[in-house]
């Protein structure tokens, strides 16, 4: 963990008209860490993801990835540098097969593989997320849980250094959540740094090394899951009820 951070978010702000979506967000993400991002709906979590991967540039502040300034680069430039993401609202390429969906990730992600190599990588990744038997199906025919896995598979096929996971657990049942958490851990064990947004709190607290809390675009707390869950500011602003925090932590 003594290495230079893979991602540095420095004083990033973004506003939409009168809404301050992000205000002076600053943190470092060390190599190999799983950093959780939590906050109530509308806190600016997905906006932060969108700034990091170039959907829109931040109005203020800098984003540094592997020591290089990536502020204002387009999504495809950032993808090619080794950042991959999943979407909160799944975005399958519906008429393409599951395999082709994942091949897009591998062909155009940071390794820029050929079509032939991509097929091999895609099969391996589909095996990893448990979709391999559906490889020929159109992506549109998958159910929500499978589409979430497809999102993840596509991102992984790019062999990213940094993976942004936006609510991959939402809408899954407890068994599926447990499986997915295991998958996320394994991804980290392969050396991928992960920034994860999640509403399924016990799972997030469980899997994250460190947690950042956003509220109305402000960064209100940062620390280990234990520290954050016991932070009075977080309890007040986010969890509302102090007992809830204890209960969430106990749900492991």
């Amino acid at each position, binding site marked *: 963990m003594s290495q230079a951070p893979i991602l540095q978010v420095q004083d990033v702000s973004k506003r939409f008209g009168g809404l301050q979506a992000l205000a002076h967000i600053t943190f470092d993400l060390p190599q190999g860490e799983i950093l959780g991002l939590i906050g109530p709906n509308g806190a600016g979590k997905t906006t932060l993801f969108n700034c990091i991967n170039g959907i829109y540039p931040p109005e203020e502040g800098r984003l540094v990835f592997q020591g290089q300034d990536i502020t204002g680069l387009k999504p495809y430039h950032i993808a090619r540098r080794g950042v991959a993401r999943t979407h909160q609202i799944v*975005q399958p390429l519906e008429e393409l097969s599951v395999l082709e969906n994942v*091949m*897009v990730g591998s*062909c*155009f992600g940071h390794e820029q593989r050929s079509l032939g190599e991509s097929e091999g990588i895609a099969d391996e990744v589909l095996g990893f997320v448990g979709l391999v038997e559906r490889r020929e199906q159109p992506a549109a025919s998958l159910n929500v849980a499978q589409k979430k896995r497809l999102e993840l598979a596509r991102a992984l096929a790019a062999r990213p250094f940094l993976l942004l996971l936006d609510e991959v657990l939402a809408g899954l049942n407890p068994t599926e959540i447990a499986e997915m958490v295991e998958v996320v851990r394994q991804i980290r064990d392969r050396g991928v740094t992960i920034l994860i947004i999640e509403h399924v709190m016990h799972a997030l607290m469980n899997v994250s090394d460190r947690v950042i809390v956003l509220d109305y675009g402000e960064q209100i707390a940062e620390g280990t899951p234990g520290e954050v869950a016991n932070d009075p500011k977080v309890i007040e602003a986010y969890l509302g009820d102090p007992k809830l925090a204890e209960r969430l932590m106990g749900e492991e």
Partner: protein
Amino acid sequence: MKKQLRNPGLWLALAITAAFALWPALASNRAYARETSFTILKAVAFAASLNILLGFTGYVSFGHIVFLGLGGYVGFYLMDTFGLHLALAALAGGLSSAILAFLLGKAILRLRGAYFALATIGVNEAMRAFIKNFEPFGGPIGMTLNFGVYRAYGGPDQALWMAYIGTALLTIVVVLVSFLVKTSRFGLGLMAIRENEDAAEVMGVVAPNAKTWAYVLSAVFPGILGVLFFFKNGNIEPRDAFVLHQSIEGIVMVMLGGHGTVLGPILGAAAYQRLRGLLLVSPLFKNIQLAVAGVLLLIIILFIPAGAVGWLRTRFSRLRRVLV
């Protein structure tokens, strides 16, 4: 590449195209058969080119005929004024259409959906208005090839065959290119853009470049085709070169056969031309044949949006290997 060439779908598409092309050689009235085949091949080449943009990339161009017109004009001018050989003029026509598409790509491919479609109509109309007032190209009257030009090719009859063979070869090339695009990494990027441009960009597809090259590729062949066609016609004028409804007929052909497939535009173009031929000789329909095209498009979009080949692919998954 080798793996791609083993695909039976490619050979089926090429065989059907070759059958259209070779038919005049076997027919009893060869000149008549040649004219029929010429019309079909021209439609196939145009539809298959349009499909690269419409079918693979998901961008609807209502003004695609502008590339046929512009290419035709440039090639015609070079043949008429400088006596350039047909083959070179055809390449020049293709190149000029490609350049136009490249420049347009930078300007209007940022627009999405209906806005892009509208812009393409504007381009076609603007180009017609420009050519109409451009004196070197003959202004509103256009240009007529000096009969002597055909002499260089061994007389008018030989020249017509030459234009025909050129068109047949071009059509084969378009079908081949269309297959190679569809089965390539570039094509995968295009289809990702078609399905969801934002998601494609997040995965690393450089959409602005990919779209521009798809547009250029879909423009270069109509440019060449225009030269061959107007050479055969012997004259060119703004009214015939930039016929907006021909763009729309192109869309009907692609949709009828199945957009985003290699075989679809071939079958769609042939079927549409056959239907059009029947309508034009029918006393009842000859004046409203375009209305029939419109109704046809409506029916396809409402009931078989994937087109004939797309429908067959969904219905019989075993046919997928053959129906690319």
